[in-house]
Each structure stands twice: as structure tokens, then as C-alpha cells.
């Protein structure tokens, strides 16, 4: 394969460098901004070298933002906490609901199972507002609007198809005879499920769980419609924050950094499984 000429290799090197700059620069630049004061940010021309400050993060953590109009109380940390609560609860619920269902779909061929699996899959690609807008009216009637439970429930639309289809693939890859052998050794189907099927599908369950967490965390539109300020996750909170804090750009950058750090760390940790997860198990990395 690799009989490339010197010119070819130089071309590839330059192309890769450009790719890296385009995709990495925004992350690096925002990270740098988050350690700068507003004066440093507004300086023209911008400088790479500056004296870093933690003031932006301190302001965010204390919830006291200095703005031109005086001190402003914004509980960005609460948004961060909401994101943790909503995403974790959604993933735990989706795993509890989804793993047994994925097992049923993989092991028993029954029509209702296929119908459910494909309905969830096709709604993964339907416009979310189509479901969300009528749901918001129902939620108002049911009193579920602006509750953690209500939001966690709609997050199942994100997490459940992912978990169902990825974990189902892993269950299908386990020979049913292994479970049969375990049952003949004197174990109930429940024991075969928890001690054979679940451990063997472990990597898939972990991957699906991590990926669902990331997608729930990154979701914007669900909470935009269903949550008010004190239940909002960071994605919606950050937008509100931009409006509220006005020109405190360093603090905005710090808020962005805090919002994306958890998912980026998880993504790096789970990168082995991401290919499979992103394609819902259609491509193995």
C-alpha cells in the first residue's frame, strides 16, 4: 500500500495537519479563553501567551457573576448538577428497561418484539418536536412539566433505542447453547440471564450506557421545551447564561469548558466502543 512518493507524503502530512487544526483549534481556543480575563480576551491582536486566571471558574462555582451592571446570581453549577442527575437517571432507567427487552428480542423471535424494536428505531429518526410538542401539552395536564421524572421519561427516547439495538446485537452474538448449558447445570433462566448473558454482553452494555449518557447530556431540545430554569441541564443553561451574562466572555468560555468536559472524558474512555455505538451496532470498529 505504502509506496507513496515524497511529494505524496508531504501532501498527506499537510492535509493531516490542517485537519487537526480545524477540528482541535476551537476546543483549545475556548479552553485558553476560559483562563483569561475579559480585558485579555478583548485585546487585539489576540495573544497566545497570557497570565492565566482562575477567576472565571471561581465566579461560576460561587454562582456570583460580576457583570458591568453589578453582581448577578446565576447558578450554573445547578445546571451542571441537573445534567448529571438527568443523564445518570435516564441511563439507569434505560438499562433497567432496555437490557431485559434487548435480551427478549435477541432470544425469542416474536412479532411484537420486532414491532417494538423497529418502532423505537424509526422514531430515533423522526423529528423530536413532533413528539415533544404534543407531549408538553400532555405534561402540563399531568403535572409532569418541569419535573425530573418527566424529563427522564422523555430521555428514554434517546437512550432506549440505543441500548436496545446495541445490546441486542451483543446478546445475539452469544451462542444460546451457552445459556442452555448453564440451565442444564441446574440454574433458572433468571440466573442464566444475570450470570451468563449479562456478563458476556458486558462490554456492549457498558458501551451503550456510556453512549446514552453522552447523548442525554448533549441533548438540547428536550429540556428546552420541558424544563424551566431550575431543572435545566447545561446545554440549555449555557444558552441562557450567554444571554444573562452579556459580555463576560471569559465566564462563558469557562461555562462551555465545564459543560463539555464530562462527555469528552467519557468519550475518550469509551472510544473503543464508539464506532459500534454510533452506528447502532451496524459497524464494528
Amino acid at each position, binding site marked *: 500500500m505504502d509506496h507513496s512518493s515524497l511529494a505524496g507524503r508531504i501532501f498527506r502530512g499537510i492535509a493531516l495537519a490542517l485537519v487537526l487544526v480545524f477540528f482541535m483549534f476551537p476546543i483549545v481556543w475556548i479552553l485558553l479563553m476560559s483562563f483569561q480575563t475579559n480585558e485579555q480576551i478583548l485585546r487585539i491582536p489576540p495573544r497566545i501567551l497570557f497570565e492565566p486566571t482562575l477567576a472565571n471558574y471561581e465566579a461560576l462555582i460561587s454562582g456570583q457573576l460580576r457583570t458591568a451592571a453589578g453582581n448577578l446570581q446565576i447558578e450554573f453549577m445547578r445546571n451542571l448538577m441537573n445534567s448529571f442527575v438527568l443523564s445518570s437517571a435516564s441511563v439507569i432507567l434505560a438499562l433497567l428497561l432496555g437490557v431485559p427487552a434487548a435480551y427478549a428480542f435477541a432470544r425469542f423471535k416474536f412479532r411484537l418484539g420486532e414491532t417494538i424494536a423497529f418502532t423505537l428505531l424509526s422514531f430515533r429518526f423522526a423529528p423530536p418536536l413532533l413528539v415533544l410538542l404534543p407531549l408538553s401539552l400532555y405534561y402540563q395536564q399531568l403535572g409532569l412539566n418541569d419535573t425530573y421524572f418527566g424529563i427522564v421519561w422523555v430521555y428514554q427516547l434517546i437512550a432506549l433505542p440505543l441500548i436496545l439495538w446495541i445490546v441486542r446485537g451483543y446478546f445475539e452474538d452469544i*451462542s*444460546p*447453547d*451457552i445459556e*442452555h*448449558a*448453564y*440451565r*442444564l*447445570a*441446574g*440454574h*433458572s*433462566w433468571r*440466573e442464566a440471564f444475570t450470570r*451468563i448473558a449479562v*456478563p*458476556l454482553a458486558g462490554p456492549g452494555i457498558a458501551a451503550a450506557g456510556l453512549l446514552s449518557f453522552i447523548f442525554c447530556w448533549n441533548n438540547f431540545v428536550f429540556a428546552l421545551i420541558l424544563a424551566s430554569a431550575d431543572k435545566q441541564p447545561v446545554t440549555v443553561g449555557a444558552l441562557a447564561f450567554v444571554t444573562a451574562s452579556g459580555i463576560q466572555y471569559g465566564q462563558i468560555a469557562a461555562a462551555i469548558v465545564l459543560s463539555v468536559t464530562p462527555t469528552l472524558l467519557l468519550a475518550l474512555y469509551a472510544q473503543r466502543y464508539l464506532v459500534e455505538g454510533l452506528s447502532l451496532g451496524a459497524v464494528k470498529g
Partner: protein
Amino acid sequence: MARLELKSVGKSFGAVSCARDVSLAVEPGEIVAVFGPSGSGKTVLLRMIAGMFEPDAGDILVGGRSIVDAPPEQRGIGMAFQNFALFPHMSARDNIASGLRASGAADIAAKVAAMSRLLKIEHVLGHRPRELSNGQKQRTALARALIGNPEVLLLDDPLRNVDAKLRYEMRLELPSLLRRSSAAVLYVTQDYREAMAIADRIAVLINGRLVQVARPEEIYARPASVAVARLFGDPSINLSEVAPIAEQGRLTAVVAGTPIRLDADHLPTDTRERCWLGVRPDDVVVTRQGGEGTIPARIVAITPLHERAVVLLRFADGGEWLAALLPEALDAGADEDVFVRFAPEAALLFDHATGERIGVSPRRQAA
């Protein structure tokens, strides 16, 4: 120990019928091989006994009790799978011990040690399945099936996925190993030699139907039908269409233009319009001497097979037979004209329409 009994078991998947009216009893300590071509329903039969499929009809009894409604874990069955089906995340030791632990047995370590010594896998007990060779996997799977002293032992083509040398060794070892357990053993195989080497009786399954259940040598010598005769023997049985005529209580058939006397106790004595005459290649004698009861033929080709020479013979009417001979018993080469004969005792006659063997079975003769 208990007897395994299948009573008119039936099973179909959609339009495909996998078991039709299958009745079979296996005594404790007996090894019955279920033998048949692939797709004949052998594995489905085992899986119904193990509780992975539910029979549509009939009943399955162990020690006189019906087990069809019991879940697999309560059936007292040990099973070895074709693909081994070891628990990949457990060591060989834990694989073997899993059943004992589930039943809360005592002296688990000692039992595992004894079983693994018997199967010569003590040195790999700490290994995970993926670190084992196929032979070791297969022995681990057998140990796992045997260790709980099950009343019924099911072996689903356990030698299919091991290499030829090991398969040969295991064929010698298995019968004594299985008999130690005094379980009722059903052994599925696609290899008639394996069935004959291991089993006390062979149950021949074709298209979901049991067509013959008998001792190995009986099935070989007196197959119930053309289909069974074809399945046993390599090279497979020679078949010629004949119309035997009874003369003075003796049957004569014209084979390739030569009248041959078919005078043996197991053969019928009345005239038939159309029959298949079957003679196993092992029973065909090739000589240079002609004479009464010999059929002239020409040697078309000679191939070695299992230390024997397989000779392809062509008769004047174009019909072809195979003869399997010891090489030293053959004193002719390819393209030479020879004579073929066979003892009447070796001849089998089958009904042309139904394929069933005509004549008297040895057991009825004795009676």
C-alpha cells in the same frame, strides 16, 4: 438410575416437520446413538429432551415421570454440545463445577479433581476456554456434562469439532467413560462408524422418523431399507434392479445378464416383479476365474481408501459396482476383464417401491 422414554414425540417448525411419531426407550447404562443425515432432526430431538424445545405431540419420560413441563434445570440431564458451549468467562474448573455448585453438592473440589483426572485435563483446570485446545474444550464439556451423575446424558455430536486423531482416541475411550456413569445415554452423530464404535444400539433417524432401531452389527447386516443401507458403509452399498424368480423353492435373479442364485435363510423365497438387490462392496469378490454364479465385468479404476483398494467395476449392461478389497486379494489391474461374485448370505433385497427390505429378520428367524 432411570430409563429415558420417548413416546410418539412430534415436532414441527412451521411446515417443516422435524420429528414424527418418534418412540424410543433408552435403558440406564445403555448408549443409544441417534444417527442420520444432517437435517434429519437429530439435534431437535435432543433439544426437546433437554427442554429447549417443547414437543408438539407425545411425551418424554425419565424414570417413568413425564418431564415435558419441567424447565431444563429440573430435568436431571447432562448434555455435551457440538460447539462445546463452555462458559467463556469462567475457568475450566468453574465450568465443570457449575452444576455441583447449583445443587449445593459436597466435596466439589474432590469431585472436580477426580473427573478431570479421568478426562486428563487436570493441568488446564485454571484456564479459560479460549486458552484451551479444541480437544481440551471437548473434554471439559464432557466433564461438565458427566460430573453431576445425570440420569440422562445427551451428547450432541461431541466429536464433530475435534481433529481426526483425537476423534479416534475418544471413540475408544468414550464407551467405558459413559458406561461408568450408568446414565441413559443418547449420542447424536453423523458418522456411522462413530455410531457403531460407541453405541449399544443405533436409532436411525431420517426426515424426523425413526426408521430402524437395532444393534450396530444388525443394522449393518440387515438394514431396514435402502436408505438405511446407503447410510451405513463407505463406499456405500451396490444396488442393482432385479426381478427374482422362485424355482423349486430357490430364488434366482438375473444381475447384468447373469443368473445368480439367491439362496439364503434371510432372503424371501417367492417371485418378485421389481426389487433392488444390494451387495456391500466389502462382500464383493473379484477373481480371474469365471464359472457359475460369476458376473463378467471390467475394472474401470482402482482407488485406495482406508488401507483397502476400491475397485470400480463395469458390467456388460453398463451397470457399475464397487468392490472394496484388501490390495493383496486383487490380482488384476485397471482395464482388465474379471469376474465378480458374492455369497448369497451377503445379498439384500429391497422392495422397489417402498425401499423396505424384503425377507426375514435374523431375530424372527431365531424365534
